[in-house]
């Protein structure tokens, strides 16, 4: 780990408090170590702001290991920045050149209102899960875990969808602010597994309806969501969801109509 350092110019979206409806503010940062993570660079900026008794930049973060899905920045136009398959917290300053100007904005979408600076409200995602993103099994009702053998490849496929961390990068990346990748990842995860097939139809209908209700846009097959997803969730899941949805709304079960 050869430690180098760079100087950068940060253009950061500030909103709320004295910044009102929002504007970009520019900060110069010197001697930023290239082994530093992107969020640690923000820590340095905030320490400097606090030492000048100015208000620090609000941004969300927690695990800093790329798994909790809390961090949410659009960096130079890309959700989570330039590295493929990487959350903002796992992005390091070695990805940037000396003298670079870096623009940082919040995840923008109608369904993700800004709370402060780079912090947005993603409770619309919770609402989609609450609509049906589960298997209805009460604690204690389960049979022995090995009673349902699942083919390894099937299980792996469900897993690939289940790795979604609910960060919302797919929405931020989408020109229509659609939540198709997020919703479909959950639909696919559960409908691929035998445990989840029982309620598959009801689930997909409820989740898609909720998605629309929350104000997310429609999918127009741009696939920016897949490109910017830090967990590299495939748009194939969207195809799976569409198929499940068609089965549910046009399906052969007249009882449910």
């Amino acid at each position: 780990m050869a430690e180098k350092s760079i100087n950068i110019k940060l253009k950061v979206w500030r909103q709320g408090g004295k910044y009102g409806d929002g504007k970009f503010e520019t900060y110069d940062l010197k001697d930023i170590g290239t082994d530093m993570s992107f969020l640690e660079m923000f820590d340095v900026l905030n320490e400097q702001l606090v030492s000048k008794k100015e208000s620090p930049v609000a941004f969300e973060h927690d695990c800093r290991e790329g798994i909790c899905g809390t961090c949410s920045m659009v960096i130079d136009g890309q959700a989570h920045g330039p590295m493929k398959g990487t959350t903002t917290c796992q992005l390091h300053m070695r990805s940037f050149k000396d003298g670079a100007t870096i623009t940082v904005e919040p995840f923008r979408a109608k369904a993700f209102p800004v709370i402060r600076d780079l912090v947005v409200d993603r409770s619309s995602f919770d609402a989609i899960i609450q609509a049906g993103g589960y298997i209805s099994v009460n604690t204690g009702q389960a049979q022995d875990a090995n009673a349902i053998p699942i083919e390894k490849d099937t299980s792996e496929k469900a897993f690939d969808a289940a790795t979604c961390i609910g960060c919302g990068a797919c929405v931020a990346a989408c020109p229509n602010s659609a939540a198709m990748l997020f919703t479909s990842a959950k639909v696919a995860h559960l409908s691929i597994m035998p445990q989840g097939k029982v309620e598959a139809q009801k689930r997909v209908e409820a989740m898609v309806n909720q998605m629309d209700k929350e104000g997310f846009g429609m999918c127009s097959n741009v696939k920016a969501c897949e490109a910017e997803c830090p967990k590299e969730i495939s748009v194939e899941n969207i195809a799976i969801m569409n198929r499940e949805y068609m089965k549910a709304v046009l399906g052969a079960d007249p009882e449910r109509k």
Partner: protein
Amino acid sequence: MPLVAPNNKRRIEIIVVGTGLAGAAAAATLGELGYNVKCFTFHDSPRRAHSVAAQGGINAAKNYQNDGDSVYRLFYDTIKGGDYRSREANVHRLAEVSRDIIDQCAAQGVPFAREYGGLLANRSFGGVQVSRTFYARGQTGQQLLIGAYSALSRQIARGSVEMFNRHEMLDLVVVDGKARGIITRNLVSGKIERHAAHCVVLATGGYGNVFYLSTNAMNSNVSAAWRAHRRGAYFANPCYTQIHPTCIPVSGEYQSKLTLMSESLRNDGRVWVPKKKEDCKKDPREIKEEDRDYYLERIYPAFGNLVPRDVASRAAKYVTDEGRGVGATGLAVYLDFSSAIERYGKAQANMKGVSSPSKAQITELGEAVVKEKYGNLFHMYEKITDENPYKTPMKIFPAVHYTMGGIWVDYNLQTTIPGCFALGEANFSDHGANRLGASALMQGLADGYFVIPYTIGTFLSKEIRTPKISTDLPEFEAAEKAVKERINDLLNVNGNESVESFHRRLGRIMWDNCGMSRNKEGLTKARTLIQELRAEYHKNVFVPGSNDEYNPELEKALRVADFMELGELMVCDALNRNESCGGHFREEYQEGGGEAKRNDKDYMYVAAWDFKGENTDWDLHKEELEYNNIEVKTRSYK
């Protein structure tokens, strides 16, 4: 055990604080049972709780591998792993329900790893000689938490759980000696709110961030537990801290947190340092086999690289103290996968019928197997360090990871305040002085899904005639006033040093004096240093902004204030315990070779500390530990 009938459950309210594995599982299950649950998290969504970051796996005594596992074996391993400092009855219950957890999670759709036959796969973790760890790639915590979160979401949709995101608990309200509510701060608006219920369940995690640098998430904190402690809940064994042996080493001053590399890597990775000091700065690939010291395999042949965490961490400390550490700072050891890659490569070549494979072919095939098992961990390591662990050994070093100590609870998980319960890492009961790998997820889910839903009846069965608790009671008013005063005091200091800087200084004191090894002199000094730092904090901290806005600096300021008080108690506890056991290593008490020397005659007890007021010494209560179903021995992994 007394029960509460369904018609009475409908009239009872329960507050659950925290939505990690323990909290989400508890809230969901209590909601399913018909109670009215109010659930709180400071996160923007329940799914973000730090259980999400657990990598390696979850233990269960399923004996699917037919390798001699049993409920008793899991019980035995856990008590022994905890160095005979946990409560026997609780651990046995944990082992019993461990099997139900796997069933429940599989039914929820958790995509556990499977064999080609479609059945569940297992691997091994430290301190055991069976394969009982269930896993979901390197993301077991995430998958289990999503399972609990989806069960919770289902109850939220049904209306049996009311969810409060972005609400932080700042005090516990005790009315007539019973826990009846909490005071919270709405983290978006800053509004201080009162919430009442018949009882309060705390599932608020551990306090490893008292060390500043740890593998905990940035926002993990002790405040909810600490506030309950100040209201009368005893705090037990605070000095028992788990230092995890395999973390990515510290790389610079600005570092904000440390990243764990799962213990599962020790299934295949071999830990070593150079035999000769002069080799430490060399490229590890150029150091010959005979010049490497695979010190864990050498000292502990029976368990090898899979000794428990406290043992592995201490061994790493010794070899680096000898000057044989590697990396830029000399504070790292190697974790090497080259033998595993070769072994798997040969096996694959054999399976695929490749006759006399070349070294390059073996490496390629072997790397593919390693990638399938640990791919995401290797990927994460490379992102952070910019080094390729398939080609060159990982560098690792111990770091603070988990806290075995916590709020004292009885067998029913009730604290010393009637009606206040503590689950998961927030309580102290199951892991003694050292937790075994893959047991935290097990305990969190056991407490949440299978223990509290029953044991809470012991308290609530006597409350079925208690009407809804009013938030207008004078106790709520007083608690709210105290919270507002605390906030105003911090905002009004208007000093010159940031909260972050104070936290870093506290962490330094704790790590230097109450970390991997401790001694009387250092601990005594640390207590004074912490008291001084605390006084300085309340005179010179600078918290920008106001209460009535989204203000992360204020959140942190409140948490760090509580960490300082806790730090002092940890030091007191470590000073009191004149023995070495598990993660608590007192330099004065060791056997030859630096092994921990327990003192069962004088210290086979749980130290439960009773808060007596600021700047007053805590009272110590001792719960003697009795072992009727296991022979107490000196722990040996040799």
